[in-house]
């Protein structure tokens, strides 16, 4: 790489509630950074061109494709991965529903799928199955055929709505 171009940069960000300071290659995407530099291997690289959704995580509260964002772009951002979501316990009911309904098989798509499903559930109410299917269509699963995932998300939506009554 030519010295005319800056090949590395320093970033500061919050990852799962903790301060991180790092020097990164400017071409490194966020998923590689989290996996390789921070050991957060729960985010998975399935296609690295923004289609499969296996790397879905939260950046500043919004679900984002980790492979379509450079680590350098995350400077100043708040990033949350499946590890952080798990530790905070905010999707414990959803995770339990996935296990109970066997809404995962190989588990490779699951962290991204959970992040996307949690995003829908955070909007409240009980979305219809077609709405759930539509919302999850940016997350590919090759194992389950999706129905169990839809069931699990629907179950959690109902339980959360019930709990608010």
């Amino acid at each position, binding site marked *: 790489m030519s010295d005319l171009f800056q090949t590395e940069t320093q970033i500061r960000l919050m990852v799962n509630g903790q301060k991180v300071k790092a020097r990164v290659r400017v071409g490194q995407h966020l998923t590689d950074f989290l996996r390789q530099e921070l050991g957060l291997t729960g985010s998975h690289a399935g296609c690295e061109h923004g289609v499969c959704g296996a790397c879905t995580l939260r950046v500043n509260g919004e679900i984002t494709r980790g492979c379509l964002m450079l680590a350098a772009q995350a400077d100043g951002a708040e990033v949350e991965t499946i590890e952080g979501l798990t530790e905070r316990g905010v999707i414990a009911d959803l995770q339990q529903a996935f296990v109970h309904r066997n809404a995962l098989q190989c588990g*490779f798509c699951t962290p991204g799928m959970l992040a996307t499903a949690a995003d829908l559930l955070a909007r409240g109410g009980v979305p219809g199955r077609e709405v759930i299917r539509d919302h999850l269509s940016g997350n590919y699963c090759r194992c389950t055929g999706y129905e169990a995932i839809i069931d699990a998300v629907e179950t959690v939506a109902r339980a959360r709505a019930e709990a608010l009554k």
Partner: protein
Amino acid sequence: MTIDFGNPNRPNSYIGRTVPRPNAPRLVQGRGRYVDDITLPRMLHLAFVRSPWGHAKITAIDTTEAAACDGVRAIFTGQDLLPHCTPWVAVLAHLKGLKSAPQHALALDRTCWVGEPVVAVVADSRAEAEAAAALVNIDYDELPVVTQIRTALDPETPVIHPDLGDNLAFRREHVQGDVEAAFASAHKVISASFKTGRHTGVTLEPRGCLADWNPAEGKLTVWQGTQAPHMIQTVLATHLGLEESRVRVICDDVGGSFGIKVHVYPDEVATAAIAKVLGRPVKFIADRLESFISDIHARDHEIDGRIAVDENGKILAFDIDDWTGIGPYSVYPRTSAIEGNQVVNLCGGPYDFANYRARTSVVLQNKAPTCQYRAVGHPIATAVTEGLVDLAAEALNMDPAEIRRRNFFRDDAYPATSPANMRFEGLSHQATMDKLLEMMDYEALRRDQAAAREKGIWRGIGLASFIELTNPSPFMYGIGGARISAQDGATVRMDPDGSVVVLSGVTEQGQGTEAMLSQVVAEGVGVRPDQVRVITGDTQVTPYGGGTWASRGAGIGGEAALQAALALKGAILEVAGAMLQCAPESLSINDGQIVDLESGAGRMPLSELGRVVYFRGDTLPKGLPRELVQTRHFITMEYPFAFTNGAQASYVEVDRETGFVKLLKHWCVEDCGRVINPQLVDEQIRGGIVQGLGGALYEECLYDEHGQMLNGSMADYLVPMAVEMPDMQIAHVETPTAESLLGAKGAGEAGTAGAPAAVMNAINDAIRPSGGRILQMPMTPERILRAMGTLSD
């Protein structure tokens, strides 16, 4: 020893119940351990330079510029690797006449498909390896390519491997009865041509391995996402010149396999060889773009079929001519002739008819190699068979369900042998179809279809019955000389705390093997499933076994685990009898306690027995057997394969303007013998159905006339998404195999076997008013509009 499966209230009745998967909580927390999650000290990364040409001579390779890049540690060409890794030829002795050319880990002087690995660049990081790989300069002279299947054997078509003489890798014809006479005397003869699209598995976790050669120990350790660790051990030992005992293959979590990860890939062998040369750990993880051109493809078939029926709809004969293109090499070590061979074995499978002719012609071409993918050959055979049966029904003006009923092997006709010489121990086509029609409310659905058609909405119902080959014996591979194990083993032991460990040769790919093993062992020993720890996927630790393929995990590996568990129970009770001063036969184990067999009264927890055996063995009688560890292996002996059967139905709506297909609902009734875990079986079937629907409607590896793959990215190659898929209703008929105590047959491929045929028949039922029909998969909107005559340019 027997188990009273008919009594759901028997003690420790875990077989037949939905119990949770022990590995699932880990995976939902992002705590999986896939190959790419593993990091070793001094680990290097590999990137491959792959052939950009379908067929080309390599005239020069210049690595100077690449070698000068930051982080680059080594670069290997095919010639560099040649002294360290021998080539392979993928043939099997029982597939007579099968031929293929020697294949090297890296191309030597010629490349034969776009994606073939040519140069390996080793660097400190994958990013650096990729950057340097882009600077490797390779000069090629383009050679003529072979892309078409039907013309591959024409005299004017170039021969890909001149030493082979022609492009015919394998041909087999099977004839039973007097086919010509049957067609000559038939009331109706229907002919049709089918195509199934070349597609691929798209495991969400790409292939990968991490190889570590320890020169001090003379030992190679390979972490690999694979379905067959012992097979990989054998192959690496053979081609790297090591003793098998010096190779350890470890398979932790695997992100989807579906057959893609049961083969030997040149890039993975190269990774192991390079690790051995460098004496450092080397990791290779395919990226998605190279997955599309280097993972095996499958199902590239063109089939001409004929069916002969009498005036009552009785099937008199099938005549099948199958052609398939497999790429430039037969894939090692299972070979690429199996899929075509399966088409010959499986066509007409559910039906009792007399005259059968089937031929497969397996030809070489300059595209990615094809090999076994989930439900190998079944979706093709089922689509052709069930497509022809529907066409016959139409010609006879007979209901599709009725023509099937008139031709099934009767449920009381077993054992039976099919015209393809497949031996069936016990199937249930009649009961299965009855249950399917009842579950879907066939008559009501026909009324709904008619009402919709009144309104100009085209809906269609499609049925498909099928057979599925599971629990393979050595007749599948071993008989042909391949070191691929059909038997499988399990070791079950009790630890001092009374908990149980099972080590099994079958592997977990996400289908639920570990749950299945935990509940089988729990029932066999008499503990709770959560007291059973499951260890799979390590050739240094587990008993020798075949792994996961051909739907064998539960039927073969499960039976081995059950037998080992029962043996452990016997060993425990012998010690318990000595401790309690009573006959072992008067005791049993229930929920982790030694109990009186008759009264069920608790006598002693297993942890107490464990304490005495392991820490106070001096208090036990001298000479008392106290091996609280038992190993059993299982192999099927009576039948080459345990066939299962099932029936599926699809209800679709075709948009007459756009040709888009809406999947309204899907049903499947399946008979996999004893159902061990109802939820896991149902989810295998659902996932399998959707994989079948993918091949039927969306998935196709498109190539141009130069052998370039045109849609090799996740954005261009379509896989099923949540929004397009239907809800699926699943039910079972259970005809256990008598070959094992467990009685389980396979269930992992049934969904994929039948779904394409069901949806094809449904679409043709929907577009029947147009007078057209579609027999080519994937059934894209464009092809459907052409079939309807709406598009004709």
